[in-house]
């Protein structure tokens, strides 16, 4: 690809929570960096992007995206899904280690990096396996994984059953400055379950996963983190009580952070009525109370990042009786518009939303992305906050068309995505 041009993004409302910036400014990009904000008469642009009436923010940072490669290329590839990321305004994404094979050796991490470089649509950051093969029995070779560029470690959706191994893995990860990403779920309390244990599971006769499945695991990890002074990040919270427990831990100064998937802020167990397999997700959609409390957690900052939890599937993965369908939503292309819906509904203000999608997830990863500060990498998302559109999964860039939001009327759409100053996505206006 030729060197990116010198670009002036003219007249947009620039929102960058990292520097508490919200103003109508020009943004100037050159040599892969942000070189100036505001009037810069000396900057000679080769190209201009007219951003009048648009919002210019840092490229989104998504903590949880399944690219499906290696191992499940019938669902998605690094090329197809990083293109979907670009279409969603996401310039940096983080992949969990539950690929096939698992990311527990530098070789798999290298393979993903090479493919991501070839695709060149988004920055791909890698979470290595916390335990070998994600089996929860042996600590993975984290020194090698860190050396190969992994930014954190995780056991994917598979809980580490043995508390001692979890403790040692967390301590060991701390040696290498690797953030531990935990998906809190008690393996026994969740065994055999598919949906929130509540009114809807009772009515539909679907095996339930109680809230305690999550809170027991949150409690266990918090106790270990406090005792051993290690940092943990809880990913994909689903329950109100978890937010309360994490808020209390944060108030006592524990280095604990949390994220939530965007769909958890919109959907509840009630959306499962009629056995809607598009709403089959893990962790499950919970009660309206839980959904509302997660929103409060996002607003207050206890939950400091919102991710897409992007999980593309082939159509047949959702065409079966509910419990036989695969969990997950193809979420990259609805991430920002669904976030904007929260702003329109008065649940989050626009600065908070953008912070939860840019600077704060980058902070969780300990990476210097998610800001438009002069000198930063020129990763930019430009969107029209007023553009009406109707979600049509058939038009998704992602190979996965699985979404419960099909047919939703949303307001706000990504128009341009720039990665290191080059346009990796541009929507016809």
């Amino acid at each position, binding site marked *: 690809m030729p060197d990116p041009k010198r670009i002036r993004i003219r007249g947009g409302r620039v929102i960058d929570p990292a520097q508490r910036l919200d103003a109508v400014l020009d943004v100037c990009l050159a040599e892969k960096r942000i070189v100036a904000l505001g009037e810069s008469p000396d900057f000679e642009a080769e190209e201009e992007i007219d951003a009048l009436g648009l919002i210019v923010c840092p490229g989104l940072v998504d903590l949880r995206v399944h690219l499906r490669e290696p191992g499940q290329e019938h669902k998605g590839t690094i090329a197809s899904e990083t293109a979907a990321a670009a279409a969603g305004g996401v310039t940096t994404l983080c992949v969990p280690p539950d690929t096939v094979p698992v990311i527990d050796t530098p070789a798999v991490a290298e393979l993903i990096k090479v493919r991501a470089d070839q695709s060149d649509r988004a920055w791909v950051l890698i979470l290595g396996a916390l335990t070998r093969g994600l089996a929860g029995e042996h600590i993975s070779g984290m020194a090698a994984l860190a050396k190969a560029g992994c930014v954190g470690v995780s056991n994917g959706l598979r809980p580490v059953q043995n508390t001692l191994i979890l403790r040692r893995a967390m301590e060991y990860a701390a040696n290498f400055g690797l953030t531990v990403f935990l998906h809190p779920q008690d393996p026994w309390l969740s065994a055999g379950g598919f949906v929130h244990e509540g009114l809807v599971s009772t*009515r*539909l006769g679907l095996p339930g996963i*109680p809230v305690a499945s999550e809170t027991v695991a949150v409690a266990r990890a918090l106790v270990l983190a406090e005792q051993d002074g290690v940092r943990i990040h809880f990913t994909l919270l689903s329950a109100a009580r978890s937010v309360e427990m994490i808020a209390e831990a944060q108030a006592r100064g524990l280095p604990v952070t949390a994220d939530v998937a965007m769909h958890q802020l919109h959907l509840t167990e009630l959306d499962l*009525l*009629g056995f809607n397999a598009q709403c089959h997700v893990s962790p499950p959609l919970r009660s309206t109370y839980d959904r509302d409390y997660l929103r409060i957690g996002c607003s207050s900052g206890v939950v400091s990042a919102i991710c897409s939890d992007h999980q593309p599937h082939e159509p047949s993965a959702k*065409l079966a*009786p509910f*419990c036989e369908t695969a969990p997950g939503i193809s979420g990259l292309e609805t991430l920002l518009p669904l976030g904007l819906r929260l702003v329109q509904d008065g649940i989050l203000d626009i600065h908070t939303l953008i912070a939860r999608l840019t600077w704060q997830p980058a902070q969780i990863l300990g990476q210097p992305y998610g800001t438009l500060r002069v000198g930063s990498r020129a990763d930019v998302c430009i969107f029209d906050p007023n553009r009406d559109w109707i979600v049509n999964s058939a038009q998704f860039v992602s190979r996965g068309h699985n979404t*419960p939001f099909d047919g939703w*009327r949303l307001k706000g759409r990504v128009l341009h995505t720039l990665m290191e100053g080059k346009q990796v996505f541009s929507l016809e206006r």
Partner: protein
Amino acid sequence: MTELPLRSANLQIDAKGHLRHLLSIEGLNRAILTEILDTAESFSSVPAQSVKKVPLLRGKTVANLFFEASTRTRATFELAAKRLSADVLTINVPTSSAVKGESLLDTLRNLEAMHIDLFVVRHAESGAAHFIASQVSPHVSVINGGDGRHAHPTQALLDMFTIRRHKRNFSNLCVAIVGDVMHSRVARSQIHALNLLGVGEIRVVAPRTLLPSHIKELGVRVFTQLAEGLRDVDVVMMLRLQKERMESAMLPSGLEFFQVYGLTPEKLALAKPDAIVMHPGPINRGVEMSSEVADGLQSVILQQVTHGIAVRMAIMSLCLGSRAVPSEM
């Protein structure tokens, strides 16, 4: 999701308010339930005729698609279809079909290619019948013969038919449903049917480990002690306890279950003197109830089986749109 029409909410009822599929009792109304029971009443004399058949479904093909073992449900569906003069195909899809890798959808597509008019489906997964109904062509009907823990609407309807034969008026009744409510599709369908028919009081009686979390919100009173739950009831509906539940995290043993929740003549004496005892079968004697009760004067268990044929005839004929009651009856 306010934006989307509730896709499956009215899958069962067509634009004119007629029954198209029977997937669950939830979503139906009292008028449809009453229509089914009345139609069944008109069919109940068919077996007494010298020719045990009516020509209502002549030329129609019914496929009984059983992904889970069943004796009485399958047999009564088959008899019901035959007595309506339909051609009947009974297919027991062994669990090995999943091993072979054929999906439920592929199995369905293949059968649809054989021009089936009505599928009766039993499947181990909750929602299987809904899924099939969402996939079939517009002229095909689906009857749920039991899906996972979700629903068994034909069983509930034959139970209502049986209660109506004995009690006539639903509104004054007190009904107790006893046993493994958690895993029971029968119980869920019974609760909805009893509520729709306006039963005065519905009780469920079970240990906490066998009660689903939000059962109260289905409109029942919850009892964990059998003696309290049975006091002065008009109808006792026992549930089957699957063998694999008898020794698990939920129960210490079948024997202990019987000692605490098993129906014996002494416990039945707490109910009203004219109370009837029901069970969807097959009975585990000495677990859910003693033989004295199962074979006793208050037991209507075998009548339930007989009524199952007429009720299933009614449902099949209504689903396929043959609402006219034949004149020779």
